[in-house]
């Protein structure tokens, strides 16, 4: 798997490069600003670009802009955006085009190295990786009395992990269940929420997120 990194703080750029190389991921480029990211991606055509949201010159959301530009100009390159803060609006922007191969994670997730590398691979292979924080906020914002209240605790756990973009196998491993049990839970969840079952994992994520957002209390 080949990746390009965009991170302006040298300490983190080098740390991330070392961490990925240590885990059999090939880092073919490491840049510190959005313009160079686009250039590097178009030249190297990596499987995934890992981008810090805050890049120069204004250190607001240049990374997000650059990632979306990469998305438009190099559709085969997946994008994984990392940040020290979570903003729901950024998550929405990343998922807006409905295409798969996208991720949005807090830098904290990097600490669990094997899970982080797993998320990078998942995104590179066309899946989704949403930070549990993003999902948790969507859950907590919802109005009381919706169909989610009818879910059992276990079903809510499965729903969260689904929203993060995990595959059935990954969910099973995480919750120490069999894949079959997970599949049953998912079927129940979709039935209770009134959602059509979808085989594609990314479409599943979008469906769940759309549902959660629609259940949100008015801001």
């Amino acid at each position, binding site marked *: 798997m080949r990746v390009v990194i965009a991170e302006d703080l040298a300490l*983190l750029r080098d*740390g991330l490069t070392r961490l990925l190389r*240590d885990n059999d991921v090939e880092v073919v480029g490491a840049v510190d600003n959005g313009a160079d990211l686009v250039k590097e991606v178009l030249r190297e055509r990596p499987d995934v670009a890992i981008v810090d949201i805050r890049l120069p010159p204004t*250190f607001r959301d240049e990374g997000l802009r650059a990632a979306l530009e990469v998305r438009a100009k190099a559709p085969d390159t997946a994008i994984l955006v990392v940040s*020290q803060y979570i903003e729901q609006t950024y998550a929405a922007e990343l998922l807006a085009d409905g295409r798969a191969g996208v991720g949005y994670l807090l*830098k904290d997730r*990097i*600490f669990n190295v094997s899970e982080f590398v797993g998320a990078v691979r998942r995104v590179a292979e066309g899946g989704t990786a949403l930070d549990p924080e993003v999902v948790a906020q969507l859950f907590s914002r919802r109005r009381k009395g919706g169909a989610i209240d009818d879910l059992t605790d276990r079903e809510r756990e499965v729903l969260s992990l689904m929203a993060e973009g995990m595959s059935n196998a990954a969910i099973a491993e995480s919750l120490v269940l069999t894949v079959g049990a997970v599949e049953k839970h998912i079927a129940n969840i979709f039935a209770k929420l009134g959602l059509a079952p979808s085989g594609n994992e990314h479409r599943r994520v979008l469906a769940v997120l759309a549902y959660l957002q629609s259940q949100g209390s008015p801001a």
Partner: protein
Amino acid sequence: MTDIALAPTPDPVSTRNLRRGFAAAAIAAGVLVGLLVMIWALAGAGYFWPIWPASGLGLPIGILGWVTWVLSDPSRRRVGLGFTIVAGIFGTIVAYLSIVWAAAGAGYFWPAWPALGLGAVLLVHYLIVRFVAPQAEMTERIETLTVTRTAAINAQEAELRRIERDLHDGAQARLVALGMTIGMAEQKLATDPDGARALLAEARGGAHEALSELRDLARGIHPPVLQDRGLEAAVRELAVRSPLDVHVTAATDRLPPAVESAAYFIVAEALANASKHADPSRIDVRLERNGGTLSVEVVDDGRGGADPEGAGLSGLRKRVEALDGTLRVASPVGGPTIVRADMPCAL
């Protein structure tokens, strides 16, 4: 304290010039009148005609003397500077007219009319000063407060943004790097324990650096010693920490926290600038409290040429002005550089 070298400080300098001007004019007039009297005496006395040029010269000299006397001491203008000067001028004019009346043979006291006119003008002036001027002063004060408040709010916003950036790029980034290193060590524990150990040692070093950056950041916001032991102790510590030769003269007890904080950061900024740009051999820091005003002065004998509108000093100036104080910088090329702040501090 060195008032004189700073600009703008109109009062001490122009008062001195005024007194010199008055002395020169008075001496010249006196010599001239003396000459005229001698000529009169030599020409056989008689009608004392020198009274005319003498009183004619006396009028402007008298006015100049009155103005100089009033301006030399702020306590002499309680009713308002303008009013006092005008009253004096009118009085001098009436005196002059009276001398003219007496010299022209007395009789009907005609100076009563111009005296009455001037008196009426003076009365109107007094009424304005007593009743209308305070209103205008209040309006002006409100304007000043509005401007300095906006400046203070902007300065605070900029400061908060700076702190957030420092936290994001400094301490937070260090913690992320630390987490990555520990995560990698965890991975290697079973398969490569020596590699894991090396990574953990690196992580420990990273933790020290993160703490150190947080300490620096905290000191940049509000130094603990300032809180615990006050301005003088905090400034002496700045002097000790500085690589330059810094001498501190201070005799202040505790002051309002906002004033102590502003004063501390002025000294810190001035020392930092001096060490970065001026290459001085000696720096003097003076803290002095005169009645209700704290004066902070930092003088270095370096090469001068400092920019008074530099980012650090501008931010501090806004802070000081929000406390109703002033911050002045005099830094001619070649030195010395003087940074001087005066702030009222409630007793």
